[in-house]
């Protein structure tokens, strides 16, 4: 502080030369702020090459669909050759929007059996960074998308939407919503974090039913993971706020599309923190109903990335298994039960480059192969995601330096 005051006095004393020099220096510094290296994106157009976040989904015919955010727009394209080339993109947005650029935000996509494409994403709708979840649908194979609509009429902040597709084509959406903060405050009650809200769509994501509350008091700034445990029974994992401000993970399995279930704690990590971890969990449910979860914590009980499974529909979980090298800052875990095993990926950073580490289990999560680096990059990158076409599991990874990559996970039949 004292130095800052000394600094301003110096400016006043030096007159023109000093000020011009300062203006020049500041101009240079601020000019640099606009330089490309300062951005997460390789470029500023809406093209895939400029994307910071890209989310994949396979269609029923094996077509790979990709939704991405780039240049303030959201676009969709498809690939018939496993990501080597893409169709001409279709813009979902008609103008540049203030897209939610939080580390755990990304556009979502599901493709139903008839080829209908449902998309959802968040924007910052005001200068206070209040979020809004928007959705749209394509009924013509991605050639065009319906006008964007808010997923709920509420004007309170919503972020971190997730979409999942039921067997009958119902689209289920869940997100974090702050609407209950206001009445709680007015009633003089303490309200921590946000709430988990949900809505389902019986018309493939063209319209959604009225939003309903699943759970109050969730962490407000981490991605959710959402899937189906069985037809009509969505399951979601989220960072909950437990007693005493402990932000550990919980799983909830719905009784049906409109009935939230009990929450079950995944692990007692004891991360008591009043902060935004920006680092949400991952959940997949195998055809034999095993829940596999992966998450990040910095709790008193354990720190780092962990994996656990549940063989009783998410009521109790196995002892957490640590992932990755602690000296390489393992982050962003993703787990997917695929046709030939359960696969996990995460990022590690060695001071210069980021690698994606992969491990696979062929015995439903009991034992795992030694981790192996399957991709790397020397600049910033999106989270590593896994996607399956029913025969193979692929790593889907957007990188600034090397563009978009779809990599088949080896060791599969």
């Amino acid at each position, binding site marked *: *502080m*004292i*130095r*800052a*005051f000394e600094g*301003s006095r110096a400016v006043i004393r030096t*007159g*023109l*030369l*000093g*000020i*011009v020099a*300062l*203006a*020049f220096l*500041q*101009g240079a*510094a*601020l*000019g*640099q*702020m*606009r330089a490309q*290296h*300062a*951005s*997460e*994106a390789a470029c500023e157009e809406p093209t895939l090459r400029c994307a*910071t976040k890209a989310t994949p989904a396979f269609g029923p015919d094996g077509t790979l669909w990709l939704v991405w955010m780039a240049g303030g727009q959201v676009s969709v394209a498809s690939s018939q050759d496993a990501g080597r080339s893409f169709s001409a993109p279709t813009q979902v947005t008609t103008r540049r929007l203030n897209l939610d*650029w*939080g*580390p755990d935000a990304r556009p979502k996509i599901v493709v139903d059996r008839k080829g209908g494409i449902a998309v959802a994403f968040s924007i*910052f709708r005001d*200068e206070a*960074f209040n979020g809004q979840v928007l959705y749209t649908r394509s009924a013509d194979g991605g050639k065009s998308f319906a006008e964007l609509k808010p997923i709920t009429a509420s004007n309170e902040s919503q972020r971190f939407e997730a979409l999942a597709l039921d067997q009958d084509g119902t689209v289920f959406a869940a997100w974090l919503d702050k609407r209950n903060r206001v009445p709680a405050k007015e009633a003089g009650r303490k309200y921590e974090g946000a709430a988990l809200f949900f809505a389902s769509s019986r018309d493939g994501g063209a319209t959604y039913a009225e939003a309903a509350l699943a759970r109050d008091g969730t962490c*407000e*700034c981490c991605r959710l993971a959402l899937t189906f445990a069985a037809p009509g029974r969505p399951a979601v994992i989220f960072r909950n706020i437990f007693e005493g401000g402990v932000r550990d993970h919980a799983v909830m399995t719905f009784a049906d599309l409109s009935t939230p279930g009990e929450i079950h704690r995944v692990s007692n990590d004891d991360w008591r*923190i*009043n*902060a*935004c*971890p*920006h*680092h949400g969990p991952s959940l997949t449910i195998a055809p034999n109903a095993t829940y596999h979860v992966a998450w*990040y914590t*910095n709790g008193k009980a354990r*720190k780092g990335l962990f994996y656990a499974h549940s063989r009783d529909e998410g009521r109790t979980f196995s002892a957490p298994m640590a992932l990755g090298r*602690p*000296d390489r*800052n393992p*982050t962003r875990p993703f787990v997917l039960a695929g046709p030939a095993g359960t696969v996990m990926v995460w*990022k590690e*950073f060695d*001071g*210069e480059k*980021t690698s994606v580490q992969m491990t696979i289990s062929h015995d439903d999560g009991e034992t795992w192969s030694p981790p192996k680096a399957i991709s790397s990059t020397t*600049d*910033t990158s999106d989270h590593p995601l896994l996607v399956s076409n029913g025969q193979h599991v692929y790593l889907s990874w957007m990188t*600034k330096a090397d563009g978009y990559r779809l990599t088949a996970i080896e060791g599969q039949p």
Partner: protein
Amino acid sequence: MRRRFAGILGLSILIASASALGAPPGLKPFERGTWQGVLKGHAGRPTLVHFWGVTCGPCKVELPLLGRFAKEHPEIDVVTISADLVPNLPAATQSMLDKAGLSSTENFIFNDGFVERLRFEIDPAWQGDIPRTMLISRDGIISTIEGSAEISDLEKWSAQQLAKH
């Protein structure tokens, strides 16, 4: 008179250059190597480094408290670093700093898209959760507070620093 004119002209250039670039003049870019510069620049002085971001709810609550702390403790160097992922919001960042009474502290904003590398330089174990406060003693010992800091803890640390001196 000539000198005064020169001053006004210079000031106009400064304002014009800053506004043309769309960023407030008080905010410095935080890039590769900046962390070492911060440590060197404040070596030997008790320094509080606060990491925050404009979209972080707990940060919004904590920032004005920190502003008051900074005002009441001129003997502590206060440095703020906006560590949001995408460094494209200097105006919003500056506005929140101004409202919190932190206009005159040394204020940085992350300015490298490769945030993993920036964070790794500061603390290899840090995954980006904010707010986060690092208390650096005169002898360079760093204590890290994850999440919102209790102002009473900052008071205690500050008193210890003064007592040592």
